[in-house]
């Protein structure tokens, strides 16, 4: 009974939101309420997520697991950020520099490591996948994209070579668009299966 009720509520809200596309003015008083409620829920889920994060590090510290030193650093940094954010007014330069001074270099460093990893991975592409049509296509697309990105190949607009270059440049995007279409279809079916209670991941079927 509870599961049916939950699914029914989800279905009704979804229909209401979708009806907003057809009857926007008639539902103009209802839709903001729904959106506000959804934003509140998502925000609450975000806070719960932060709680999960803190809990994970506290447990790691309590159980004296490996990496507890980094958990201590995390908890200290979290407390400082939390206290400073609550205490200092919005737009405070010190607070902004305190946070961004740590976060930007860390994330940029991660992306740099990622770039090196990708270079190493490109070296192992054929060794890992072998000479298959898919790997050859992947390799060709990557090379084409890099070459076009360099900017060495140019042509006057309106000429045949410009059209050819434009075609070659957009060729890899066609495959990506096809994958996105398939993903959209799959997502539609997954959502319908949950809404129609064919698939119930939140309990025994």
């Amino acid at each position, binding site marked *: 009974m509870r599961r049916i009720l939950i699914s029914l509520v989800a279905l009704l809200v979804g229909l209401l939101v979708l009806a907003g596309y057809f009857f926007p003015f008639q539902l103009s008083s209802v839709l903001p309420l729904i959106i506000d409620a959804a934003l509140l829920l998502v925000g609450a889920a975000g806070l719960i997520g932060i709680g999960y994060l803190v809990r994970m590090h506290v447990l790691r510290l309590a159980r004296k697991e490996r990496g507890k030193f980094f958990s201590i650093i995390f908890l200290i940094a979290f407390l400082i950020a939390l206290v400073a954010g609550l205490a200092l007014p919005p737009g405070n330069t010190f607070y902004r520099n305190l946070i961004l001074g740590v976060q930007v270099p860390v994330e940029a460093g*991660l992306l740099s490591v990622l770039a090196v990893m990708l270079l*190493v991975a490109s070296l192992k592409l054929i*060794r890992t996948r072998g000479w*298959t049509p898919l790997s050859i296509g992947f*390799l060709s697309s990557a*090379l084409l994209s890099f070459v076009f990105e360099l900017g060495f190949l140019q042509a006057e607009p309106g000429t045949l070579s410009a059209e050819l270059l434009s075609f070659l440049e957009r060729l890899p*995007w066609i495959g990506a668009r096809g994958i*996105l279409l*398939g993903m959209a279809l799959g997502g539609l079916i997954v959502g319908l299966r949950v809404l129609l209670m064919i698939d119930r991941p939140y309990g025994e079927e």
Partner: protein
Amino acid sequence: MLPLICPECGAENPSDLERCQDCHALLMDRNEEGQTKATGDHAESLDLLSGTEHDLPDLLHALRQDEGAPHIEGDQEDLSPEDFVESFSLPDIDERLIAGGEIAEPEVQSDELQDEIPDWLLRIRQRTSEEPDSVGEITQKIQAAQESLVEDERADRQDHFSSWLEKLGDDPESATELAPVEKPVIDDSEEAQPDDEPDWLEKIRLAEGKFDSDGAEDDDENRDGDSLLQWLVSLEDSAQKGPSTSLDEDEKNPLKEETSEEEPGWDEPFFAQEDTQQIRSLEQDASDQPFLDVSHEEQIQADQLAATIGDETALRSIKTHRRARSSWFLQLGLALVLMVVLGVALFYGAPIDSKLSLKPQNQALLTWADTLPPNASVLIFFDVQAGYADEINLIAQPVLNLVLTPGRKISLISSSPAGVLLAEQLFDEMLEVEGMVVDDLGYVPFGMLMAYGMASPANEARSLLGLERDDFDGVLILSDNFEGTAAWIEQFSAKNPDIPLNCLVTAQAGPLLAPYWETGQISGLISGLSDAQRIESVLGESQDAAYRWRAYRFGILIAIVMLVVGATIADEGKNKEEGQGGG
């Protein structure tokens, strides 16, 4: 009514039945052929030998042969087997046996009667008178067996019968006196050829395996004189060896009783049908397994279980690819190469004078920014992570310089946690310009919902974050991913196609957003360092992008070299497994 014993399976059946209840064999035919009836009547003991002439016991045959008994002629030929046996019955002898006394000499009959009595009968009587103990002992035993048949249980009779047979088998007198029993000839099909033997006896012998091809000779050796008693002894021996049944009816009756041998004691009749049937002990072989009623569903489940069990030990085609582990040396070397090359490109030498022309989408965005009214209201949506902040700053700076002019109203929304701080950092210097109104709306956790809410019409009493969709002359999206930008484009362009939508995105999102530009859903698009460098070269305000663009080009060249080298030196022999990804 006496029950009928089935000659095939030995089961007892009511006398009014024609076929056996268990094996459905004919009962009446067998009776006519000589099926013996279970009896407890002493008087009928010797009447069991009913049937045709072929059903005459061996004793009678032997007597006829020894004494040269004439063939039955005349009226006696037409006699039925029962009548013939009855004529042969010795009621007087029976009475004397019961009494326990010796058989007295037969009364002298009148001459008339003597003339009517056949010679062979006379010979029998003479024999009994001359040899008082020739068959007396046997007859006494028969009588005793008959008497005990009524009293004893079936289990006791079995024990008595086996011991009694053994005893008879050791008796030399009985071996010499009785004529040898003719052995039925068994052909390849193991069917006893019809001979003088009764059918029921042949079947018993076949069922007990007495006259199989292997054992027939042995049976011959063991049999002295082939007398009836020898046959009984040998029957007992075969019963002890565990004969196996080979009748077809056995397969149809899996729930057959496993009868045990029954050995009649001294007082049990010779030819009690019950004993005979019970001698034919039924040893259950593989075909006699209890029949199990298995439904189709159960069979499927059993097959499934068997397949699962078999599958557990089955060899699996699991790939056991040997992945060449990236040595830390290689990774370190590559990192050093990158740092050196990019560092040199960044800090040394003059920037490359790019002669790249603006792309149409770049030009469109610049045109929009140029043509904005002086008091325009622009919504800026910030969806960037801290790691991409530098790239977005490079891309957005030239455009924002055009947009952020005094007199314009700027609304700022962020959907990434650090977006608020990053936006402040980006607009820090620009927002200090006098006359510019900046409305920082903060962080909204779900950007897509925000887009939907803003695109929907709001009534006067309530609006989303105090914003009205008609307030804006344009929307500028700064994003590092394709998904968030697409959500805004789909919601806004679908419901408010008149409001221009422009995107400033990183290089990874640009290619996937290009179709939105081609369909006219967005007014302009600038993606990545390459587009930023083009715009910078056109506007000519700074060269920050130009230096980075040179380093970027060197990085791309290194990547191209790595791809080509990796494809060239790939040793496919080390990795025989192929990726099995879908799609």
